[in-house]
């Protein structure tokens, strides 16, 4: 397919898995529990009208009317203009809200088996990530050992909405260690189930709550990750943050630096300013901020560490998805820089 001669890799799209189909990949008693369950009974969703009263539509997938089928994926890729796609099972985005590892561990195992059996097809450019049941680090490591070598599984995904304690806590070290040792990237992905906390606090419109809901979880986790020294403990780890746009990154870089300069002894593992670590992370671009003045975007990308830190993500078929043209519209980038963001960096980091 390619765009302007560049391979287009979408590092974050979603597959809306039918529960009845998925439940076949669970062991008992969860298989029976799930097969009879109504949507949301075990996996919390979130409120809010994504479709703005019917104004936004998705014509090339069954979603939002129905769950998707694997057969829809090639059409989806063609519609967005993708050569390769990394699909996350959508319900897994609520993972942070699962209160119990009794549910999280079988679900994580079942989901990856389902995705590998029914959805993933590297020969067609279709990949997925392993969503970790971070509630139980030991089981997460066992799962990494079991599937990380699968060609169709490109990274570990930690959903940033929900984990307590936050993801820099040492209880998660074994997960990072396993990924570090295997050169298995870790993707931190915001999740929609967190947006409800803003509704509860009195926001009236989804516009308000969505502006903050995804963002603040990534902010919370990146602070923990950096200050607790995860990149120092595990220097080989490729760290990716997704689904909060990119303007928040310089905000957190400079805010963390200001704090760190005043309280360095509270982060004694760090050998440089927090922003320097953050300039070594990667960031999915969606939902990309589109300021009237493109120079602002250029400056933000400079502050983050340059176009080599970015990877194109569509988030399709979610309501606020981005097309690859958001990258090619950045005239201030060279052709090769656009190619890096559109796919080259993702191909290298995810080994696809």
């Amino acid at each position: 397919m390619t765009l302007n001669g560049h391979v287009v890799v979408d590092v974050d799209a979603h597959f809306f898995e039918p529960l009845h189909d998925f439940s076949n990949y669970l062991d008992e008693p969860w298989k029976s529990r799930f097969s009879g369950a109504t949507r949301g009974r075990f996996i919390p969703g979130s409120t809010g009208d994504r479709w703005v009263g019917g104004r936004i539509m998705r014509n090339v997938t069954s979603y939002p009317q129905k769950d998707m089928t694997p057969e829809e994926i090639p059409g989806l890729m063609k519609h967005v203009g993708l050569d390769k796609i990394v699909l996350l099972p959508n319900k897994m985005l609520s993972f942070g809200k699962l209160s119990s590892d009794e549910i999280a561990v079988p679900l994580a195992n079942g989901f990856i088996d389902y995705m590998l059996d029914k959805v993933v097809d590297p020969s067609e450019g279709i990949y997925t990530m392993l969503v970790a049941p971070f509630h139980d680090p030991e089981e997460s490591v066992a799962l990494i050992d079991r599937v990380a070598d699968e060609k169709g599984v490109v990274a570990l995904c930690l959903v940033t909405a929900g984990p307590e304690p936050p993801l820099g806590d040492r209880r998660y070290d074994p997960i990072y260690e396993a990924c570090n040792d295997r050169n298995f990237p870790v993707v931190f992905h915001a999740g929609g189930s967190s947006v409800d906390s803003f509704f509860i606090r009195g926001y009236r419109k989804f516009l308000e709550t969505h502006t903050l809901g995804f963002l603040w979880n990534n902010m919370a986790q990146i602070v923990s990750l950096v200050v607790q020294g995860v990149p120092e403990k595990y220097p080989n780890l490729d760290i990716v943050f997704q689904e909060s746009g990119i303007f928040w990154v310089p905000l957190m870089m400079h805010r963390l630096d200001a704090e760190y300069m005043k309280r360095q002894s509270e982060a004694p593992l760090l050998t440089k300013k927090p922003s320097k670590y953050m300039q070594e992370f990667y960031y999915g671009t969606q939902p990309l901020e589109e300021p009237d003045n493109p120079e602002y975007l250029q400056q933000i990308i400079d502050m983050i560490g340059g176009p080599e830190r970015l990877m194109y993500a569509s988030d399709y078929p979610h309501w606020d998805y981005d097309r690859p043209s958001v990258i090619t519209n950045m005239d201030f980038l060279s052709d090769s820089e656009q190619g890096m963001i559109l796919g080259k960096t993702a191909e290298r980091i995810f080994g696809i």
Partner: protein
Amino acid sequence: MTLIPICSTNDLPEGSRKTVNVEDTPVLVLHVDGSYYAIEATCPHQSGPLGQGIVLPKLEATFVSAGKRLEESFSETILTISCPWHGWEFDLSTGAHCGDSEVTLSTFEIVEKEGELFLKSP
């Protein structure tokens, strides 16, 4: 190189400090744990009085193994001084901010001659 007289060793006993001027730049001279240190006395952050700051051994941490608490201890070799206004902390020997060596204050050598202390100015 010039030697700038500071005071007699008797006037700077263990645990004491004083400020001298080196070409209009205030420099803090300290006598800590048997050694003399001299470091620019004005904090580069917002010009705070570094000379009034607390002196402590540098806090160091070692990552032992996954899931374990960091082993934290005070350095046996590095002393720091912290600006009392917002806490920027500097290595007394090198002048470097403990978190960002790109921010470094000038430090000077102190020499002792016949009971008198001198600051070596480049």
